[in-house]
C-alpha cells in the first residue's frame, strides 16, 4: 500500500556529491574556525614547552636570589627570564611557569587517560554483562558520587603522601565514574542491537563481541568526554596543589605557584596573577577545542558551521 515506507533516505543530499567527508571535513572546519585554531595552537605550544624546556631551565628556575625578591614584571634589567618578575624567594616567575607547565600537563593528561581507560573498560563490561557485577559497580559509582571529589581527594591525599604520582591516582579515581557511566549506558543499549545479535549468531564469543563490536562504537564518545574532562581535571589538580596537599617542593605546578603568591597578594600581584592566567588560558583553550570538536563531529550541529547569508530573502 505504501509507496515507500523505508523512512528517511538521504533525502537532502545536494546535487553535487558531498565533497568533503570525515577527517578532511573536520580539518576544513578547523581551518575556518579562529577560536579552534588558536586553542590548538596554544595547547601545542604548551606541550612543546613542557617537553623541551624544563630540563634546560630547571636549575635557573629554582635558584633563589633574595636580592630579587618580588621583582616587578615587564622589565628586562635582569635578563629576559625575569620578564614576568620574581616570586617571594627571588625565583624567576617565567621559568617557574615553564617547569610548572610540565607538571600541570603531565598530571592532567595522565589522570584523564587513566580514568578514561579504566572507566571505559569497566563500563563496557558492566553494561554488556549486566547482572550483579553491574549492580555492585553502579552502587560503587553512586557512593563515589555521594562524596564530593575535592573532599575525597583531600581525605585520600591526607592519608597518602603528596606527590605527583599520588595526585594523578587520586584525580583519576575521582573521575572514573564519569567514563564508567557513559560507557555502561552505551554498552547497555548497543548489546540489544542487530549487529551484536548477528555476531552472536555466527558464533562470536562475548569477549570478541566486546572487542570488535562494542568497543569501537563506544570509543568516540569516551574520547569526546575525555576532551571535555581535560579542563576540569586541570582545574581540580590546580585546586589540590593550591590547598597545599597535592604536591611538595621541589615539584611545582601552576596551582602551587598561585598559593605561593598568596602572602604577597597586596604587594606583589604578579606572583598570584600570572600562574592563574596561564591556568585560565589553558583550560579555556581545552574547553573551546573540545566544545568545537564535539560540534564538528555531530551532524545535528552542522548548522553551526554554515555562514548565514546577509540577505534572508535570496529571491524576491
Amino acid at each position, binding site marked *: 500500500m505504501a509507496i515507500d515506507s523505508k523512512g528517511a533516505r538521504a533525502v537532502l543530499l545536494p546535487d553535487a556529491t558531498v565533497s568533503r567527508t570525515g577527517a578532511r571535513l573536520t580539518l576544513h572546519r578547523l581551518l575556518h574556525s579562529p577560536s579552534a585554531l588558536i586553542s590548538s595552537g596554544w595547547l601545542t605550544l604548551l606541550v612543546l614547552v613542557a617537553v623541551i624546556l624544563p630540563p634546560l631551565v630547571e636549575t635557573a628556575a629554582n635558584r633563589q636570589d633574595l636580592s630579587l625578591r618580588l621583582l616587578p614584571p615587564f622589565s628586562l634589567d635582569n635578563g629576559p627570564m625575569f620578564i614576568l618578575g620574581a616570586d617571594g624567594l627571588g625565583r624567576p616567575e617565567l621559568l617557574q611557569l615553564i617547569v610548572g607547565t610540565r607538571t600541570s600537563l603531565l598530571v592532567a593528561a595522565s589522570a584523564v587517560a587513566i580514568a578514561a581507560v579504566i572507566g571505559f573498560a569497566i563500563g563496557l563490561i558492566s553494561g554488556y554483562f549486566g547482572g550483579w557485577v553491574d549492580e555492585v559497580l553502579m552502587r560503587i559509582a*553512586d557512593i563515589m558520587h*555521594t562524596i564530593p571529589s*575535592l573532599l575525597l581527594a583531600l581525605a*585520600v591525599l*591526607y592519608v597518602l603522601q603528596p606527590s605527583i604520582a599520588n595526585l594523578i591516582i587520586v584525580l583519576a579515581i575521582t573521575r572514573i565514574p564519569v567514563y564508567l557511566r557513559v560507557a555502561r549506558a552505551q554498552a547497555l543499549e548497543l548489546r540489544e542491537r542487530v549487529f551484536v545479535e548477528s555476531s552472536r549468531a555466527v558464533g562470536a564469543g562475548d569477549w570478541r563481541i566486546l572487542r570488535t563490536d562494542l568497543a569501537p562504537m563506544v570509543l568516540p564518545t569516551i574520547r569526546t568526554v575525555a576532551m571535555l574532562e581535560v579542563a576540569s581535571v586541570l582545574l581540580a589538580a590546580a585546586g589540590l596543589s593550591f*590547598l597545599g596537599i597535592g604536591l611538595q617542593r621541589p615539584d611545582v605546578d601552576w596551582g602551587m605557584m598561585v*598559593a605561593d603568591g598568596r602572602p604577597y*597578594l*597586596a604587594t606583589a600581584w604578579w606572583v598570584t596573577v600570572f600562574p592563574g592566567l596561564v591556568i585560565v588560558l589553558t583550560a*579555556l583553550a581545552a574547553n573551546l577545542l573540545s566544545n568545537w570538536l564535539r560540534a564538528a563531529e555531530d551532524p545535528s550541529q552542522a548548522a553551526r558551521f554554515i555562514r548565514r547569508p546577509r540577505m534572508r530573502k535570496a529571491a524576491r
Partner: protein
Amino acid sequence: MWIFLRRRLLTSAISLVGVIIVVFFLARLTGSPANLYLPESATQEQIDEFNRLNGLDQPLLVQFWNFLVGAVRLDFGDSIWQRRPALDVALAAMPPTLTLAGIALGLSLVIAIIAGSIAAVYRFRFPDRAISVTTLTISSIPDFWFALVGILVFAVQLRLLPTSGYSTASAWILPTATVMLAPIGVLTQVVRGAMIDALGAGYVQNARARGFGTARLVARHALRNASLPIVSVAGDRAAGMVNGSIIVGSVFAFPGIGTVILGAVLNRDFAVIQASVFVVGVGVILVNIAVDAIYALIDPRVRVGAGKGK
C-alpha cells in the same frame, strides 16, 4: 511515585552504608590510625595507650563492628583539636554552608535558565556564540584564583568589599561568586542543550503552528520538559558545591564545612574528617532524593509510569 521514591531510598541507604565503609577504611588505609589521630611527636607509650583505648589492638572485623555501632549512634569520636564530639563540629558548620550553597545554586540556576534559553532561541547566532564563549571562559577560571583576584581588586585596590567577617551582606558577595563559578557554566550549557531539544520537539513545533509567540513557546512549552536534565545536573552540582565551599573556606576563612575540613586536615583531627565526610554524604543523598521528588512533580509520566518501568 511512591514505588519510585522507595527504590530511591533503598539505593540511598546502600550509598550511605558505602560512605560509612569508605570513612572507616580511610582511617585504616595506612595501617595504624594512631599515626593519623595523634600528633607526630607522640611517644610509643602514647600510641599504645591510644590503641588500647580505641580498641585498635582488636581484630579488624571487631574494630569495624565497633565503628559501625558508633556510626549508627552517630558517634564518630571526639575532635582532638576542639575537644568535643566530631559530629557536632561538622554539623555546626552546616548552616552557613547550606545558606551559601543555596544562594549560589539558586542564582546560578536563574542566570543559567535565562542565558541558556536565549542561547537556544538564537542557536548558532551571535547571542548564542557570545553566551557560549562567556560560559566557557567562566568554567575555565580556577575558583581559588578568582577568589584571590576578587580580593585583590575589590578589597585591596578598590576597597569596596571587606576582607573578613561575615556580618554584612557585602562580605557574602565574593564567596557566593566564587562558589557559583563551577556550576554556572555547566548549567547554562545544559539549559541550552535541553532547551534546543525541547524547542525542536514535535509538541513545541506544533504549538508554534498554533501561532504562539517565542516567549510562550520557551517559558511554557519547552521549559518544563527541558527542566528534567536541568534539575538532575543542578542536583549533581549541589554535591559539587562542597568543593567550592572548601576553597571558600581556604581563601575567605568562611565559617562553613570547608573551613572545618581544612582545619581538620591541618590539625590532624581525623575524627572530624570522618564526621564531615559522613555529614556531607548524607546531605548529598538528601539532595538526590529531593531531585527525584522534583522529577516526579514535573513529569506526569514518571508519576504514573513508576509502577511498571523502573
